[in-house]
């Protein structure tokens, strides 16, 4: 029997919420945003077309360079670490042992803590004088760093706080692990593969589509990180602006300095950066990701 076939009109009516929203909240704003990025627009006066001036100012803005550098450095540290930690934890909680639901819940628990609360508690934990981290290190005879207030330790601190949310990629890897057929491991064992060989030749290829998904999501999220650094460093991004990140600067430009044109230009560069990196990852994945059944 033929499947339901309808006219374009009826189809469009059904998906009207999506395309109306797409036009109103995405496509048209995207176009306007590009125009604003080519203008000087202090909100209260109409936008004044200035061509590529915002972009050329960005090219020589030292603060922009700093936030871009910080954001890329954070992403470069966070994405591999979180991928490795999430896969390792997923493999551990995937072992058939009693008590696993408890461990899974423990690892996932931090991910449901609201970001504001997360920032609040880590600010206290990182306190160089009185926080439990440095107290513990002092007890072990180590002089702890200034963490958030230290230019060297600011980005590692943010990586630690972000790694606290390792539970959500971990859960996705766990589901991916459970999709790998047990027979493949059995075959690898009979062929004499040890645990390293099984990980290298069965687990990694089987998990590769999930790794691709998680890495792409991590790139998109890491390059946009906002709430955590914005609260952790508040209005003071620390010495040498070590705690100042891309979206924080964009937000400040837009809503504190009311430089809408400049902020829009930053938004467009961020968009291109994300698209470019995602495209790069997909291009690499063509040769490294293994799709079962495809």
């Amino acid at each position, binding site marked *: 029997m033929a499947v339901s076939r309808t006219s374009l009109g009826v189809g469009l009516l*059904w998906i009207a919420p999506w395309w109306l929203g797409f036009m109103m909240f995405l496509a048209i704003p995207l176009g306007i945003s590009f125009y604003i990025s080519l203008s000087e627009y202090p909100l209260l006066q109409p936008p004044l077309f200035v061509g590529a001036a915002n972009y050329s100012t960005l090219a020589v803005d030292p603060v922009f360079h700093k936030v871009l550098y910080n954001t890329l450095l954070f992403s470069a540290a966070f994405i591999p670490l979180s991928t490795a930690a999430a896969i390792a934890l997923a493999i551990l909680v995937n072992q058939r042992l009693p008590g696993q639901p408890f461990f899974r819940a423990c690892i996932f628990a931090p991910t449901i803590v609201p970001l504001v609360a997360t920032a609040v508690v880590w600010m206290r934990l990182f306190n160089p*004088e*009185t926080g439990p981290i440095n107290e513990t290190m002092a007890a072990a005879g180590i002089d702890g760093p200034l963490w958030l207030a230290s230019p060297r330790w600011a980005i590692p601190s943010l990586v630690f706080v972000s790694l606290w949310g390792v539970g959500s990629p971990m*859960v996705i890897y766990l589901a991916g692990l459970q999709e790998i057929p047990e027979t493949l491991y059995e075959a690898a064992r009979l062929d004499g593969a040890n645990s390293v060989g099984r990980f290298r030749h069965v687990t990694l290829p089987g998990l590769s589509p*999930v790794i691709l998904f998680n890495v792409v999501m991590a790139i998109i999220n890491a390059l946009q990180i906002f709430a955590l650094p914005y609260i952790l460093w508040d209005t003071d991004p620390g010495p040498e602006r070590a705690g100042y990140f891309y979206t924080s600067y964009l937000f400040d430009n837009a809503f504190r300095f009311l430089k809408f044109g400049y902020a829009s230009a*930053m938004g467009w560069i961020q968009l291109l950066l994300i698209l470019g990196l995602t495209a790069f990852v997909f291009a690499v994945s063509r040769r490294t990701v293994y799709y079962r059944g495809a």
Partner: protein
Amino acid sequence: MTRQPTGYTRAQAAVARRARAGQAPSATSQFFIYAALTIGAALLLFPLWWMIVVSLSSPLDAARAAVSAEGFSLIPTDPHWGNYPAALEAMGARKWESFYDALANTIVLCTLTVIGQVLSCSLCGYAFARLRFRGREPLFILMLATMMLPAQVTMIPLFILFRTLGWINSLAPLIVPTFFGNAFYIFMFRQFFAQIPEALVEAARIDGCGYLGVWARIMLPLCRPVIAITAIFTFMFFWNDFLGPLIYLQSEEKYTLAVALNSFRNQYGGVNEVHQLMAASIVTIIPCVALFFVAQRHFVGGLSLGAVKG
């Protein structure tokens, strides 16, 4: 038992048996697995535990803890439950009122956005899965592509749009867009709807159901898991959302809990009120934890649906 082929050693047979049984690790590796898991879980839970302990300590202990960890116990021997009402009372400029307003705003925001997302995304997901019309595939791909766009790039035009509409300092800029779908949830609904047997739809059609009837009476009741996932994720997102409320909400009586907690931190971030700050933070976590325990399998199912089954 089948006869074993020659050259098939006993060790190999044991290995194969263990593989079939689902590879129970040896005692030594069990020890290391448990050790690694315990350390990992302890590290991840410590901040939460520390938060609870501080929230229950006396103002004096909390202040002392903020100055030095000496004599600060990690087990609350003398819990000061009174910190909680005290924190909520002091959450804003107006006693209790500020907290009640923030709570009410957050509940209104979460309820309406959940309704908006479930309605719009299930409708669109159904159409993308079950209605054949020209242009459906390109539109679907376009929709998926929009998932990659960072919100910041449209932030300013949207702010101007909502400002022109006079919606600044209200929840409308956060709520209204959810009634126009979300690519990720539409995608999930579509994947789910596509699996429902056509025969079921045909039967309903023969019985005189229109497309809308099929959607409401056949499809929606069948896709409770996706509805649950969409509802939970939307709830969690808006309960936690910081950037949106920070842009659009200006006066205190419009704040959501996330923004109210942040301004509470700004006001009372001093050493003397750590216990209250932690208590207030825990109050904002409680609904999320409760939701997690009620709907644990949906959290996990939802996170993996897009990645693994997609």
